[in-house]
């Protein structure tokens, strides 16, 4: 399946998007991140394999929105989900080193006139899609099938690689007045993560 640069963002291993991201981390820490994070997203049926030109990835994300979030969506607030995939080289003694990183930012918005949910920039999809119900839209977003992630350096099949997939609701994209509430509320802190070995 073809894809364009718009579907994901490849990030260099050594550098992250510092600045805002780093600050956000601090912000989360300051607000007792560990206590407030609500694992609303769950990731299952993951499978990855080394292929020509990169990594092939299959995964199903169960993205459940709280009523409060749905309400906001229905009132026209666009929601963005950040899907972050990291390729790690596993090391026995030290921490795993990050080799590559990809980011996908699908967006869901309710279109009042048509009464439908519009999904843009879904992982692996180029065009926008319209859905009658939110669940359909979320199912569409959460289905990763045959997603090809280009790698910067050749992968050796013999090496031990790990993949970490993290999906979270991007609170930064929310309008400013909503952000404080969102950061503090458990309903809005939707997040999920999974780590597995490449090849499984």
């Amino acid at each position, binding site marked *: 399946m073809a894809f364009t640069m718009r579907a994901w963002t490849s990030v260099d291993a050594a550098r992250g998007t510092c600045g805002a991201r780093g600050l956000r981390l601090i912000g989360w820490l300051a607000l007792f991140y560990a206590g407030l994070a609500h694992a609303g997203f769950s990731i299952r049926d993951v499978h990855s394999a080394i292929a020509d030109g990169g990594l092939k990835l299959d995964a199903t994300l169960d993205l459940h929105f709280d009523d409060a979030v749905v309400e906001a969506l229905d009132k026209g607030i666009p929601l963005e989900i950040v899907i972050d995939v990291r390729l790690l080289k596993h090391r026995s003694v030290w921490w795993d080193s990050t080799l590559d990183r990809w980011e996908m930012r699908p967006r869901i918005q309710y279109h009042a006139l048509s009464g*439908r949910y519009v999904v843009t920039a879904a992982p692996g999809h180029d065009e926008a899609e319209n859905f009658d119900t939110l669940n359909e839209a979320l199912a569409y977003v959460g289905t990763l099938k045959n997603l090809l992630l280009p790698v910067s350096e050749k992968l050796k099949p013999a090496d031990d690689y790990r993949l970490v997939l993290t999906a979270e609701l991007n609170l930064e994209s929310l309008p400013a007045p909503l952000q404080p509430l969102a950061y503090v509320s458990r309903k809005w802190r939707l997040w999920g993560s999974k780590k597995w070995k490449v090849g499984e």
Partner: protein
Amino acid sequence: MEGRRITRHLTGIAPLAALSVVLALALAMMAAATQNSALFGRVYTLLLIVNVAGIALLLLLLLLNLHALIVQRRARVLGSRLTLRLVGALSLIAIVPVFVVYLFSLQLLNKGIDSWFDVRIEQALHDALSLGRSTLDRLLEDLVRKTQAMALEIDGVRGREATVLNDLREHYDVFDATLIGADGRIVASTSHRGLGDRAVLVPDRPREAILAHVRQGEVYANVDTTRSGLQLRVVVPVGEREMGAGRVLQTLQPVGPRYSSLTDSVQSAFAEYEKLVYLRKSLKLGFTLTLTLVALFTLLLALWAALFFARRLVAPLRDLAEGTQAVAQGNYRKQIPVTSRDELGLLVQSFNDMTRKIHRAQMQIRRSQREAETQRTQLETVLTHLSSGVLSFDESLTLHMHNAAAAQILGVDLDTLVGRPLAALSQHEPALAPLVEAVAEHAGRDGEWQREVTLARAARRSIIVRGTRLPGLDDKPAGLVLVFDDVTALIQAQRDAAWGEVARRLAHEIKNPLTPIQLSAERIRQKCLEVLNERPRETLDRATRTIIQQVEAMKTMVNEFSDYARPLAVQPEPFDLNLLVRDVVDLYEGKHRWVAIELALDPTIPMIQSDPRRLRQVMHNLILNADDALAGVDDPRLTVQTRCMKEADCRFIELSVRDNGGGFAPTVIDRVFEPYVTTKEKGTGLGLAIVKKIVEEHGGAVWVENLKPRGAAITVRLPLRANAAPVAVRESA
């Protein structure tokens, strides 16, 4: 003390100032972020956290400061009470207006936000949306009809689907049409779009879900939102086939530009409004939060400023208080630093001047005291060594001060009488009664007075007393001071001088007629004795002898007087005293063999520088005196002794004449050297007086003492070198 250092740093200006600047910036950014500006939107939460944390820190610092202040107040540190009061007052001045403005602003804020929302507008937007929806529904219906018609027509066509489809599409004026086979593959697709459009190469497929839905015989008609706008999508089954199989026809129709722009505007307006309605609460919260933070920040800044200024204001006052305390404790050297140019600074300067002056005055006083002390000591020394007696009384005639000479002259222990009234003097020692009377008599009068007072003693002493009033404060009387000298000796000398004068004149006057009388008597003897008869011759002989003898005796007496009276010119020459003594004694050896004369002469006495003639006279008189004393005594013995005074390094020689007679009577012994004092029936009583005169003129001393068991001794002490100056005051001879 590390904790205190840290606390001090924390309560200083620097951290507060830095924090305030940071907070101000953060607040400004947050306020901007609330406007939903894209730049700040991302960091809104972060800013919020920074602001809250900053304000919390500021609050903590302020509380630390306040706590420190309260601790100081409890410990009664100088200036803490005033500082606390000032801080309290300033805080109140700051808090009340800020609070009022805050509440008012909050009200205004809420009302302002509420004013954005109007029910009618909301209703209008809802209505517009409904209108839009109904328009779209109509368009959809239209498209559904067309698609169904097309499906009917294309049903059964095999092989030429593309052409037929295209014709149909053009006929029905549909933008895009796609025929999908039963297997899901595209059979034909035709589009109004140009060749350059990507969609021509990759037709827009409906999702699997839609296909499944349609294959069940349902019609799918919906509005899609695409990048290029709203698009109608209709998918209908083609032909009546059994369920789960068959072909489907999809038509796409973008909403026309006219409708598109209208629906877009309705959609966006509605969406925005809905969003706003939804965000209303959180918007209010956001603004309230910002406002609260700003108000808190302002308040805390004001409090901090209050603390700062209160401290600065009170600092010089505290220094002043400390200064006054120091002064109260007697430390006049404390100087306070001047830190401002205002009235407080002036006060501090004045205080410093004052303490400087006091210190100088104190030094001055100390110096004066020391000088007074020194002078007093000097005065005491002078008084102590004065030969005149000094007594001072206060205004109630209580003895205040005395010197050693006074005690010695008066012969009483004056230490016990200090603080006692004048009368106590005579009570203690009755001999002082005349003195007391004299003082009492003159006590009331001003000015100086002088009296001669004789103390009623066995040994009569005459003193001349001079009294004067002491000057007191403010011309009030402050007692009196007496100065007196023992003039007994002086008077004695005066008396002696007077006597001498009288004697001299008398002698001179008497002497004159004596010689003619003697001569006349001798003449008579010479002329008449042979002529007369026996009886008259005897009478004349006896009578004239008597006259001559008596006249002779009178001459002797007069001569002795002359000796006594004559001022002697001492002609000192060195001679051996022992030799002189032996000479004189030899003379008497022959005459008075019945008196045993013993000599005890010290052979070691040196040569004495003196007048030998006078000393010879002294010896004579002494021996004669002893002789007289030994008259009628059993075993009369006379001893003459000389010795060199070893205790004075032989600067004096003592000559003593002892007898074992009856001794001197007690009534006489004090006056034995006065002229005319004698116990003999005959004799002038001048012998010892002459001795005393001669001895004193030589600068020596003579005294008598009674011996035990009986007898008397007269001792003469002579210096090796005689004094040329006479002792008593006399007129020139």
